[in-house]
C-alpha cells in the first residue's frame, strides 16, 4: 500500500478545526502547550482571538472549557490522550460530564503509535476511562476523512464528546464521494460470512488487509469499522455476531475496557459469541519507532492475520 495517501488523524483534527472555525463563530480552541503537536496550531493561526493556550495545566484547561461552554461557546480542549483523559479524568468527569456541558475533547497521540516518547506518553486506557462517564460520546476515527467528519459531527452534537486521534500517518481508506459519517453508526467495510472483525482507529486499514489475506486462505471475514465507541452500534454488532458466529475486535488500546470490552458487554447480554480481543495486552508500551511498536505489540497486518487465522480454526 505504498502508493496510498497517508495522513495522521491529528492533522485532520487541526484542519477540521480551522474549517469549523470559519463556519462557526462560537468555536473556540484550547490547548496546553502542545499546539504544534496536536495541530490546533492550524486553528490558532487562522483565529488567534479564539485560541486559548492554557499552558501546561490540563486539569485547569478542562475546567476553563467547561466555563466557556456554560456561556454558549463551543470549546474544543486539546492535549495528548494521556493528559486529556488520564491526568484530567476527574475534571472531565465532574466539570464537564456531570453537568453535561457542550465541551469537545480533542485527544491526540493516543496509543503506542506515539512511538519514541515511550510508555509515559502512550495512552492505552483513554477509551476505557472516557466511556464510563455518563453521557460522554467517544469517537475514534480511522483515517483523515473520518476524523474530519467526526470533528464536524462532534460540533453538531449537543453534549460532551471525546475525540481520539493518532500521531502516526495512516492510510486514507474512506476517500469516496458517497462517504457519510453518522454518529453512533458502525460501517461495514467488507462483507463476509465466516467471522466478523470489528475494529476502530489506526488498525482498521490493517484489518482490511488482513481480511484479504484470510480470503486467500478461504476465510471470509466481514470487517466493521466502529468509529463511535459510545454509543456503540449495538444493532450492527449483534447482527454481525449472529450472522458470522465469531467476532474479533481490534484496537490500539488496552484489551481491558476499550472497544473489545464494549463489544463483549453487548454480546454477553444479547448474543453470546466467542470473541478474540486484539489490542494492548495489559502492559505498558515502550520507546521505538511507531511502525516497529505496532508490529511488536501485534497490531500490524501480519500479526492480526495470524491471530485471526489461529482463532478461526
Amino acid at each position: 500500500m505504498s502508493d496510498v495517501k497517508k495522513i495522521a488523524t491529528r492533522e485532520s483534527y487541526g484542519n477540521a478545526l480551522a474549517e469549523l472555525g470559519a463556519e462557526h463563530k462560537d468555536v473556540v480552541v484550547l490547548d496546553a502547550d502542545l499546539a504544534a503537536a496536536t495541530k490546533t496550531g492550524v486553528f490558532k493561526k487562522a483565529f488567534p482571538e479564539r485560541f486559548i493556550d492554557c499552558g501546561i495545566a490540563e486539569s485547569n484547561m478542562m475546567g476553563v472549557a467547561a466555563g466557556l461552554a456554560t456561556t454558549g461557546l463551543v470549546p474544543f480542549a486539546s492535549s495528548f490522550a494521556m493528559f486529556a483523559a488520564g491526568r484530567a479524568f476527574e475534571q472531565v468527569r465532574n466539570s464537564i460530564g456531570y453537568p453535561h456541558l457542550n465541551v469537545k475533547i480533542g485527544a491526540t497521540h493516543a496509543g503506542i503509535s506515539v512511538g519514541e516518547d515511550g510508555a509515559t506518553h502512550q495512552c492505552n486506557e483513554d477509551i476505557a476511562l472516557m466511556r464510563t462517564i455518563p453521557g460522554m460520546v467517544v469517537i475514534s476515527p480511522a483515517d483523515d476523512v473520518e476524523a474530519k467528519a467526526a470533528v464536524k459531527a462532534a460540533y453538531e452534537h449537543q453534549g460532551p464528546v471525546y475525540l481520539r486521534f493518532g500521531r502516526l500517518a495512516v492510510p486514507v481508506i474512506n476517500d469516496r464521494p458517497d462517504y457519510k459519517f453518522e454518529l453512533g453508526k458502525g460501517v461495514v467495510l467488507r462483507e463476509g460470512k465466516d467471522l466478523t472483525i470489528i475494529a476502530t482507529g489506526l488498525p482498521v486499514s490493517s484489518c482490511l488487509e488482513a481480511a484479504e489475506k484470510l480470503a486467500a486462505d478461504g476465510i471470509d471475514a466481514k470487517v466493521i469499522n466502529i468509529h463511535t465507541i459510545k454509543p456503540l452500534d449495538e444493532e450492527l454488532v449483534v447482527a454481525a455476531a449472529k450472522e458470522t458466529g465469531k467476532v474479533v475486535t481490534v484496537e490500539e488500546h488496552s484489551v481491558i475496557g476499550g472497544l473489545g470490552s464494549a463489544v463483549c458487554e453487548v454480546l454477553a447480554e444479547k448474543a453470546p459469541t466467542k470473541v478474540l480481543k486484539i489490542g494492548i495486552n495489559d502492559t505498558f508500551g515502550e520507546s521505538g519507532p511507531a511502525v516497529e511498536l505496532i508490529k511488536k505489540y501485534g497490531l500490524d497486518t501480519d500479526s492480526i492475520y495470524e491471530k485471526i487465522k489461529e482463532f478461526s480454526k
Partner: protein
Amino acid sequence: MDKLKLMKTANEVRKDIVTAVHSAKAGHPGGSLSAADIFTYLYFEEMNIDPKDPKKADRDRFVLSKGHTAPGLYSVLAEKGYFPKEDLKTLRHTGSYLQGHPDMKHIPGVDMSSGSLGQGISAAVGMAIAAKMTGADYRVYTLLGDGEIQEGQVWEASMLAAHRKLDNLVVIVDNNNLQIDGAITEVNSPYPIDKKFEAFNFHVINIDGNDFDQIDAAFKEAKTVKGQPTAIIAKTVKGKGVSFMENQAGWHGKAPNDEEYKIAMEDLEKAGEALCQM
C-alpha cells in the same frame, strides 16, 4: 448599601442553612455560616441577576468552588426567590433537586456544578474569558475555601486568570482557618494567602468577611481594578452566628441533632431580634 437590611437577610440565610442541614441530617454548616455574609452581599447587593430569569445572558456569574457549602448558596438563592424556601428542607433527600453539592442542571440560579475542590475556579476563569472574548460586560465571582487552595488546580487557574488580565473576575477566599482535619495551619498551611495571590499578579484585598462595611468596600474596590483579577481574602469565623459551632472544626461537615438545632435557632432568633432593635 442598606447594611441593617443585609445583616437581617444574612441572619435569615443562617437560619435557612441550619434548618436545611438539620433536615438533611448531613451537610456542611460551618463553612456555609462563615460565608453567609458574603453570599448575602453577592446576591442582594453586588450581582446583576434576576431570579425570574436565572439564565439571562448578561447576568453576573457566581461559581461556588467550595461546593460543599451548598446549604449557604441554596439558602441565599431561596431568600432571593429562585425557588421556595420550604424546599430547603429537602436538601440531600433522595429525589430532591437540592443535591449535596451544587448541580447546575437542576437548581435554578446555580451557574456551575461544583464540589470537587479546586475545579470551580477554573470554570469561573472560563466564564470570564468568554466575557472578554465576546465583549460581554458581566462579572464573574467565585468563592473558595482556605483549605481548598491546597489544591494545585487553584493555582493553575489563578496563573491563567492573571495572564489573561481577567479584571472581570473576583476570587474570594473564605479564610475561616479550619478544614476537616483541623486548623489549616496544622494540616498544610496555605499562608500567606494574600502574598501568594499577589505573586500570581492578582489585586489583593484583605477584609473581615463577616463585616458588611468591609465587604462592600472590597467589592467596590474590585470594580475599579483594571488589567488584573482581584482576590478578596475574607477572614471569617467558621460556624458564625451559632454559638457552639463557632471556630469548631468538628462542625465542618456535621448536622445538628434536634436539641442542637433548637439551640442554634434560638441563637439566631436572638440575633435577629437584636437587629430589629437597631
